[in-house]
């Protein structure tokens, strides 16, 4: 079993795990929606977003595994770590719920992801800058799509408005992790690897405010209580089940080296 926490983990590796794990877990949530979309066109779009996120996860985790130097690969990190070693944001592990929950989660994440990736394209680490540049194109499309859905549902019918507002109110407590930063975020910023976390927070807020206003939705307060911990491995109850399903084959057949 891989236990990252017990090994010396540089801030850069920890940071890459945050990037990779958030993409992986949100990709897995998209995969769970296969065959359940409200229209065929959305089925395609959901798979499209999932494909992008899994691709990004593979890039970030491959780099993290290389830096670890333990001879592992991205698959080992994805399929052989337990929940406490995952560093994803809490918002991405939240259940799919209804389409408002799904799109609300996607939007709040995308609005952060786009600005983060945009900043990472200027990273002093060329490998990160390269992955970010490719991912930014994808995330820009994700944000356009999720913003449009938040606006459609927010400013659609009475029912869709109620559902969208409820989803937003429910997810809001997980957005603290998008705007608060810790010593790892700070260290990455100081090393020129990652963008200024304060500027990132400001940009996220601006995007969210613009879309929610257009969507006729009430933005919950920034000063409300926030549920945090994903970035240090303290997760919600949902992650364990998501991983149990995702990791089932490599864990059941630990001797299998190829699939």
């Amino acid at each position, binding site marked *: 079993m891989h236990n990252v926490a017990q090994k010396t983990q540089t801030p850069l590796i920890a940071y890459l795990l945050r990037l990779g794990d958030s993409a992986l877990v949100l990709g*897995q949530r998209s*995969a*769970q929606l*296969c*065959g*359940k*979309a*409200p*229209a*065929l*066109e*959305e*089925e*395609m779009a959901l*798979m*499209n977003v*999932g*494909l992008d996120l*899994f*691709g990004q*996860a*593979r890039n970030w*985790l491959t780099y993290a595994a290389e830096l670890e130097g333990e001879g592992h690969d*991205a*698959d080992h990190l*994805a*399929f052989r770590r337990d929940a406490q070693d995952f560093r994803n944001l809490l918002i991405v592990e939240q259940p799919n719920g*209804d*389409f408002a929950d799904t799109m609300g989660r996607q939007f709040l994440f995308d609005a952060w992801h786009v600005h983060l990736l945009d900043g990472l394209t200027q990273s002093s680490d060329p490998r990160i800058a390269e992955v970010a540049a490719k991912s930014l194109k994808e995330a820009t499309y994700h944000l356009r799509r999720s913003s449009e859905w938040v*606006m*459609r*549902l927010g*400013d*659609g*019918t009475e*029912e*869709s408005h109620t*559902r969208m507002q409820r989803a937003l109110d429910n997810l809001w407590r997980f957005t603290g992790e998008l705007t608060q930063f810790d010593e790892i975020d700070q260290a990455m910023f100081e090393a020129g690897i990652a963008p200024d976390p304060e500027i990132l927070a400001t940009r996220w807020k601006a995007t969210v405010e613009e879309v929610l206003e257009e969507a006729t939705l009430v933005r919950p307060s920034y000063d409300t209580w926030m549920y945090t911990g994903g970035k240090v491995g303290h997760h919600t109850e949902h992650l364990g089940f998501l991983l149990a*399903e*995702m990791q*089932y*084959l*490599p864990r059941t*057949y630990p*001797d*299998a*080296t*190829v*699939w």
Partner: protein
Amino acid sequence: MYAQLVETGSSKLKTLDEMSPEERQFQERINDEIKIEPKNWMPDAYRKTLIRQISQHAHSEIVGMLPEGNWLTRAPTLKRKLQLMAKIQDEAGHGLYLYSAMETLGADRDEEIDKLHDGRAKYSSIFNYPTLNWADMGTVGWLVDGAAIVNQVPLQRTSYGPYSRAMIRVCKEESFHQRQGYQILLTMMQEGTDDQKAMVQDSINRMWWPALMMFGPSDDNSPNSAQSMAWKIKRHSNDELRQRFLDQTVPQLELLGCTAPDPDLKYNEETGHYEFGEIDWQEFFDVVKGNGPCNRERIEARRSAIDNGAWVREAAVAHAAKRQSRAA
């Protein structure tokens, strides 16, 4: 693949002399291998047959996403997950593309989907079988997409233009899926553990006969084939295609080092073809009539996706109307 037992509404072929001038011109065009396009005159029965066949084909693509979606969340590596997701996405694309071809005949996508949900429209029998282990993702690609390709390659020359063009595009992607599926099995057979090899054989044991059934009933029990062949909607008989599939598949089975669950399977030196045992047609007709292992689950999954999404689609329409009235 994916079209079995398509009704043509006629059991007797008309000769050219018995046809009206329009029908005759239409049939001559087909005989000359000129494609029928949406604006051309066509007999009502030809139109209806095509709508049935193309919608059945489209439904099969969409329902066919479900047995694969069953393993998408459990794919064992990131590479396999990406491949499987891309394959499922292609299938959704094929479905959309085929529904569009169907709409050129004046059919309505939502109405045809309603027919699927209330049991009036069919889809390929194969998707009513469960996917029970990871090797099924290989077998579905290898056998199911393989059978589909054998069926669809001739359909690239089918008489109706939009359907023919859809098939050309679909075939390219299906060939890719088939190779990927075979690769999953080959990797496990050549480099896998005993458990993985057992998984592959178990999967082939379950999927073999249902894959052979995909070509539909045997020729002497296929009442609609003659008309479909005359219209060149269909270009080869069910048994011909089944034989072609078997002849190309058995050597691949041997390369895997696996066996088929058919004690009568053998190569005939004289004919140059493989011979196989009797297909359990009772099982085939049971599955087609709704009594397969997963018929209820598949339809329920499709219906609930569409029903649960009703409020979303209504919101999208309402929002578009608001936008339009604000712009006006």
